[in-house]
């Protein structure tokens, strides 16, 4: 799963969001690292919808602009948690060793 897809799914964990809402939430959750351009966002939303991870929830018009809200499906929640567990395990491989490296004196 790409970083963009991961943070889009993570952005939807608290409830349905529209395009700009997803962009802001993904940026905030990633500490500013993931700044989605619209072309990237909608390409990722298409793929996630094709995979059955998200669904279009509802749409509304605000100040003459169309907003469509997306929400996570059960498959999407499951995929997000699997990815988080995989990354946690991958991170532990390094963080465990970094702890032991800190107390092991390096030669040369």
């Amino acid at each position, binding site marked *: 799963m790409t970083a963009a897809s991961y943070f889009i799914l993570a952005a939807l964990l608290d409830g349905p969001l529209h395009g700009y809402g997803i*962009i802001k939430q993904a940026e905030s959750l990633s500490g500013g690292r993931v700044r989605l351009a*619209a*072309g*990237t966002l*909608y390409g990722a939303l298409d*793929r996630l919808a094709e995979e059955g991870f998200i669904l279009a929830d509802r749409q509304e018009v605000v100040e003459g*602009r169309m907003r469509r809200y997306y929400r996570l499906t059960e498959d999407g929640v499951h995929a997000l948690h699997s990815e988080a567990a995989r990354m946690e395990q991958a991170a532990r491989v390094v963080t465990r060793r970094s702890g032991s490296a800190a107390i092991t004196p390096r030669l040369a």
Partner: protein
Amino acid sequence: MSGRLRRRYERLLFTYPAAYRRAHGDEMLGTLLEAARPDQRLPAPREAISLLLGGLRTRAHQAARQSPQRLWTDGLQLGVLLIVLVNLGHALQAPFPFPLWIALVAITALAVLRGWTRTALIVATVAALAAARPLLPQVSLPWWLPGYGDWSMVARYAVPAAVLAALAWSRVGRPRAWSWWWLVLPAAAALPLEGNPWALAQAVLQVGLLLVVLVVAVGAFDPRPAIGAAVYLAPGLVYAAEEAMTAGVPSTLALGYWVVLAALMVVLVAAAWRSRRYQLRQLEP
């Protein structure tokens, strides 16, 4: 909010297929305008690039969803179209015009342009055989043919015939009709512009277009322009080889030209292969 910004974003959205624009255009426009600064009048560069590549990627994805083979066949058809249109331009530009030959080349171009595959295959084969006739022994030259005495000219007519035969044999998808705007190409090729500035301008334009083709293949994962460009360059490879051979001992320049052309084709095919693999991966369940 500036209406000008809205119109500029609407224009950029034209890179997306019409059906996609109908389904998502308003929503994308809403997101783009919401993300814009209140005084913004020009599209943000990163948004513009993302829309251009996103639109092209969506087009390639839709073609792949219709049939994965279409990524190859669309590219091959584009390559054939480019060759036959440039052939028409050159035929019109010839110093001693042969009306029947020009008619044959024009019918080939028209048939390819309109997607009449069977007609295109027949006339392209006749044109290829006619172009090769001067090189065949014991065959007198008919009066309506220009006297081509080199294999590179034959390649310019044989490559389209061979690709059209392969397309007819594969029977993948419906042959596509192209816009009449493509006729600008033979019109430009037929312009009596000679001399170094024009040759330089032509070379710069071609290099620029090849770079665009590579960006489309690498950035938008659309292999079709790269396949088309590789087919278009194929007769050039024969020309460069012929130049190197006829010099007796191949000169460094002639060999260098051939190597550069061959390397370019390898890069194009590799880029096309990579983007096709990406598109096929997207189709996996």
